[in-house]
């Protein structure tokens, strides 16, 4: 009996965690329209000869849509392990924080946003590895 109760509690906890992490996909969707308006001005302010044309950054929309579509598929079919969902949530929180902080336009904000970008690369790496190891792909 205790085993069944423990299993049910564990399932409920997993299910709550998974749903909460899946809902984090909404964060960038809410944050970007509010805080991401001055990105074009900032590309001029922090001009570099190697910065691609503004249109090039539209790929982020494609990436986020593909990322969210994969997450919805994984959520519906219970494909991902909890670690993958935690990484997914961290990526969404990171992107949202980056949008808010980079949008401040100060040198301090620029430094923090680069740290966030580096963390984003590493979080994505952990996410991919967790998907491979848990056969979540």
């Amino acid at each position, binding site marked *: 009996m205790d085993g069944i109760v423990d299993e049910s509690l564990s399932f409920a906890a997993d299910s709550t965690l998974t749903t909460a992490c899946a809902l984090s996909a909404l964060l960038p969707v809410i944050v970007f329209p509010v805080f991401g308006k001055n990105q074009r001005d900032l590309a*001029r*302010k*922090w*001009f*570099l*000869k*190697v*910065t*691609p*044309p503004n249109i*090039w950054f539209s*790929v982020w929309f494609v990436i986020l849509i593909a990322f969210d579509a994969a997450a919805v598929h994984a959520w519906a079919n219970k494909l991902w392990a909890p670690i993958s969902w935690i990484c997914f949530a961290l990526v969404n929180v990171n992107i949202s924080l980056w949008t808010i902080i980079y949008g401040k336009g100060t*040198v301090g904000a*620029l*430094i923090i*946003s*680069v740290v966030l*970008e*580096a963390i*984003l*690369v590493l979080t994505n*790496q952990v996410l*991919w*590895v967790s998907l*491979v*190891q848990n056969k979540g*792909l």
Partner: protein
Amino acid sequence: MAATSLGVGQILVYYFGVPFKTQILIFWFVTPLAYEFFLWYNLTYYGPFINTIGIVVTAVYAITGAGISTVTPLPRDELTQEQQQRISHE
């Protein structure tokens, strides 16, 4: 990865005062190397998987974008006076 490399470049130029030309050299040295490192690491430790394709596609996309900007003449009218002065002194 390319976005991080761009961010580091912005800090180098606007915080540490590194010349624009030097930043271009650093970017073109570091960014392909970073992609190669992640590609090598994933292939070595986890074998080929869908992420391998992802890294290659994003690397080509990012490097193409940066390449177009590097060979395109400077949009002088879009630059601030300070940026124009710095570039003309290099």
